[in-house]
């Protein structure tokens, strides 16, 4: 694993730990504030956690993805002959 990828793994690890800490939102436990007038703040916060998780994993695909995996497999395997959805 390259040093850049290794640094990426640490950054993603830190972000996941941060998400897990933010997930335990004791500070909004008893708040009945309505965001935008309809969304309970506890629910809004956790919806934001979901978005934050998605952004974290998007970053992981850029800075911490094991890019050599495809090559490693390709060296020992025959490539599939067709692909669903043409992806």
């Amino acid at each position, binding site marked *: 694993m390259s040093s850049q990828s290794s640094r990426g793994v640490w950054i993603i690890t830190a972000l*996941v730990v941060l*998400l*897990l800490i933010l*997930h*335990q*939102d*004791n500070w909004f*436990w*008893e*708040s*009945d504030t*309505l965001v935008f*007038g*309809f*969304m*309970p703040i*506890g*629910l809004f916060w*956790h*919806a934001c*956690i*979901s*978005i934050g*998780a*998605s952004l974290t*994993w*998007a970053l*992981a*695909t850029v800075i911490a*993805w*094991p890019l050599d*995996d*495809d090559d*490693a*497999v390709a060296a*020992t*395997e025959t490539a*599939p*002959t*067709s*692909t*669903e*959805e*043409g*992806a």
Partner: protein
Amino acid sequence: MFESLDHPGLPQLIIIIIYLGLLLLLGLSSSRLFKGTKEDYQVASHSIGPFLLLMSLFGTTMTAFALVGSSGEAFKEGIGVYGMLASSSGIIHSLCFFIIGVKVWKFARRHKYTTQIEFFRDRLDNDFIGLLLFPILVGLVVPYLLIGVISSGTVVQSLTAGLAPDLFPVLNPAGEPIMAMHGGIPTWLGSLVICVVVLVYVFFGGMRGTAWANTLQTIVFMILGVVTFYVIANRLGGQDSLMENLKVLAGSVPTEKLTRIEMSKTKFFTYLLIPLSVGMFPHLFQHWMTAKSASTFKVPVVCHPLFIMIVWVPCVLVGIWATGDLIPAKPPLPNSPNAILPFLVKTQTGKVLGGLLAAGILAAIMSSLDSQFLCIGTIFTNDVLTHYKGKENVSDTQQVLYTRLFIIAIVAITYALGLLDPKSVFAMGVWCFSGFSALFPIVFAALYWRGLTAAGAICGILAAIASWGYMFYQALQQGLREYVLILPLGGEEYEVMPVVVMLASCLIVMVGVSLVTPKPSDATIKKFFS
């Protein structure tokens, strides 16, 4: 028999039939691409791209609980269920796809594994671990399957209620009709039709049929979830715009449902361990194997948390609105929280949307059932029959045949067990998930720790299952749903989920035994850690 299309339950039945017909068509179409090999039948020749992988992984992890259970739990517990079950899954599921899925995919492609047991046998250079894991994995999946089979019959019955009261009466002990189900398609028939439809497209289409069907089903239940939310909000709110409706509905909800005042903070925290089960689900393992490349995992890893949010937030809001004073007093709300969403659809929306929602709920159920049926058929064929008969003695064509025969047997057994209508199976859900979560340290160590030994893994599995069994036995006396551990600390008592002890038992025993038992051979280490 029916005077018009307006007959109670008829539009719903027609929509369900059309939807099931579409699924059969899709499954049979996918079978035209079948290459006749075991690899193609069990893992679609590793040809699944990012979009299909995203939809099939999401559809498989989201059961009927995502639509019906989420609104029901929110009705009972308030908004806290989203953090407990949904946002935690958004973090942990993708984490499992990222740290477990990609890595096992790489090993599986390199060494030609299709099932978890094949991987563990090779990684630990031990045959017994397969024998040990086989009944545990199958035993934990079967209740999960039963929930789907029983739920599908119940959903079809409740949403076609009124169709044929003379033919399908549902009466209480006093002989009065139970209106929520009276005249609906009986549960045995509904479950049978669902099982046959899933069996047909899994039998003919194998993993490709499953992935295609899962994609359609995921699209269906996601869209219908949002449409249902919109229609119910406008009907219950009674204002001119959606925004105004949302505001008045939120204003009607009691404080305890808008907050987590009644929820234990430690229970909420320890619930974080439950989604780790995804790392050990055998049916997800098999879906991972279908990926065309490691990069195929990127889209599912990124989009999974967002998809959970799109399905869960509207359902949780509908669930808490049902506790407010804008809900009409008549007809009265059902006693079962799981009946809240179907009830609101039936009373607040039209028959067509009711039929579409039935299709959506069935989609969520079937998108999990198909993968589980295929997975168990594959495990029986690969890890028991072919393994002990010898690969050289079973041709590729025979393995496809055996997988199909095992799938028929599993569907038949599950359906027969479902007919017994074991109500307690629903409470088993979280216990099944906890069992898989407890085994998470084994798969993690197998991938990342050179020092894991076969003895360590075996003892870890035994410790997890022993602690699971002990606490399950205690929970049977106290209530499967209510059972929590009490942790006394500093004069206070804290509620902790049993999964904490199960996972800790597995981890401690696995590490301890691995440290004092012979290490794997250099060849094995080199094979997996070079």
